[in-house]
């Protein structure tokens, strides 16, 4: 009887260990596994060139299935993820940010805000993204958007973080240039995320 129980305990623990480690390393748990979706990192924006590709490793494929299902392979589109502001603080709803950048080399691009569940934030503000067709470059050649939970009402382009909690941004570039594909570290134009302040905090 003791032997049977020892075997049962061993098998149950092994199944839990195998299942738990697989879910963790594939990014199917709430917290991020180290390394995944970080093959490329440019100014805090991270990506993996194997998204959508038959050459993708099993962990990348599982990660994308959970957090970016139906993502296109890089020849069609590239996706960059951002979870921190320029000061390394987690993006969150109770803070206000300026998103600013130049025009990247792409047929079309956008930056979209997603809540922690990987869907659009549950609000009806109709202000989830900025894209190439709506980004207006200023005299310095940069476009800007304000990210915060309420409409700034100052004429700036608004991306709403209302009900987003801790959120992230996805930077999509469709039909981008060979230079961006091959040397993103030098060729990719990345938006900055400047934190203006946070409700209930000193900064």
């Amino acid at each position: 009887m003791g032997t049977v129980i020892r075997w049962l305990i061993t098998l149950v623990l092994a199944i839990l260990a195998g299942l738990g480690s697989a879910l963790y390393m594939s990014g199917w748990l709430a917290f991020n596994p180290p390394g995944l979706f970080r093959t490329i990192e440019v100014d805090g924006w991270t990506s993996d060139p194997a998204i959508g590709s038959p050459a993708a490793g099993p962990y990348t494929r599982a990660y994308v299935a959970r957090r970016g299902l139906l993502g296109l392979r890089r020849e069609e589109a590239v996706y960059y993820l951002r979870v921190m502001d320029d000061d390394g603080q987690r993006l969150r709803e109770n803070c206000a940010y300026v998103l600013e950048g130049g025009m990247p080399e792409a047929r079309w691009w956008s930056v979209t805000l997603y809540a922690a569940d990987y869907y659009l934030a549950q609000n009806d503000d109709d202000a989830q993204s900025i894209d190439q067709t709506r980004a207006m470059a200023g005299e310095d050649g940069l476009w800007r958007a304000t990210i915060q939970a309420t409409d700034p009402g100052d004429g700036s382009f608004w991306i709403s973080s209302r009900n987003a909690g801790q959120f992230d941004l996805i930077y999509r570039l469709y039909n981008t240039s060979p230079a961006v594909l091959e040397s993103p570290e030098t060729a990719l134009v990345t938006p900055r995320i400047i934190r203006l302040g946070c409700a209930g905090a000193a900064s």
Partner: protein
Amino acid sequence: MIRYLMAFILVAVGIHAATVWYLPRLAMKTAMARFEESGLTVNEIAHVPPTDETSRRVVRPSPDLLYSVCILDLSGGPVRIRAAGWDGYMSLSLFAANTDNVAAFNNSQIAGDISVTIGQNGVASVALGSERGIALIRRLAVDDASMARADAVRREGDICEGADPS
């Protein structure tokens, strides 16, 4: 004691590998089931409403793209898809049951309508590599006027249907 340790390692590694292999297939099955639960039938085009905060069938949808989808079931033979031409960015992409994006065509490569025949293997113009999968048409439409135009275009011209074997 060594027997228990060896058994633990073997079972844990096996479960780990099987789970990592299965997760993408589970995600695709779940997505296809959600589409089918909403009334979509296989090998028929379905026009997804404009993306908003209530769009929760597939993670990270773009609110700037209008999607049409076809759940592919190639068990009865190849399937033909046509994506009607659009004057902004448009693409037709094909996803196998393991999430691989096996092909993508856009309207800077192909002028006008994009038409492909999809099979499980090389007989058709595109080999999906699995019996089931998803075809997705994306059209850039960032405002109400372009959404309405794109919606009319797709309802008029998009097709997903069994390919005539003759």
